């Protein structure tokens, strides 16, 4: 059982690492600020989600696991709000040279 859970963790975390990589490559390669913002917030949040899911079986208590999920929810909430704010600020800047 432990073996199986460890395997689950490894698969999820590797997948998470892949999305972190995708986010960073997108951040480097995409042509403008909006698409780069898109790469950063979407891919990295998915990466974090997979890392969190992978770590869940490694936690000692239910409370710790719940807090782990809360971390992800908070990051999701704030990056949703912040990415919109950054995109708007960038757009306003384009309009008023």
């Amino acid at each position: 059982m432990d073996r199986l859970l460890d395997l689950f963790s490894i698969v999820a975390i590797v997948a998470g690492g892949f999305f972190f990589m995708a986010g960073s490559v997108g951040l480097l390669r995409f042509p403008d600020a909006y698409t780069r913002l898109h790469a950063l917030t979407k891919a990295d949040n998915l990466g974090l989600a997979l890392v969190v899911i992978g770590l869940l079986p490694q936690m000692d208590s239910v409370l710790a696991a719940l807090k782990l999920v809360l971390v992800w929810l908070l990051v999701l909430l704030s990056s949703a709000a912040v990415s919109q704010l950054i995109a708007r600020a960038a757009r306003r800047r384009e309009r008023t040279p």
Partner: protein
Amino acid sequence: MDEFLLSAAAFVLLMVALGLLRVARGPGYADRMMAAQLLGTGGIGALLLVGAAVGEAAVVDVALTLALLAAFTSIAFVKFMAHKDRPPTSEDDA
């Protein structure tokens, strides 16, 4: 397992470093403002992985703090942009 978690943390950190290259290169202000967001997600990911490897349960609290406050810095950045766009307001509104 711990070895794997630490390697994963190192990998995520490497990806954050890669992303920081973009933040350093710019060209726009928006790209720079992503610094806090990038470390907000990637840094928290690495932190959680290291914490699980070391077996420090309280690291989750550090991650929660970062999650709460990384947004705070980003919002200050956005406010700064808005401030730069507008002509300085009169200081006395009495």
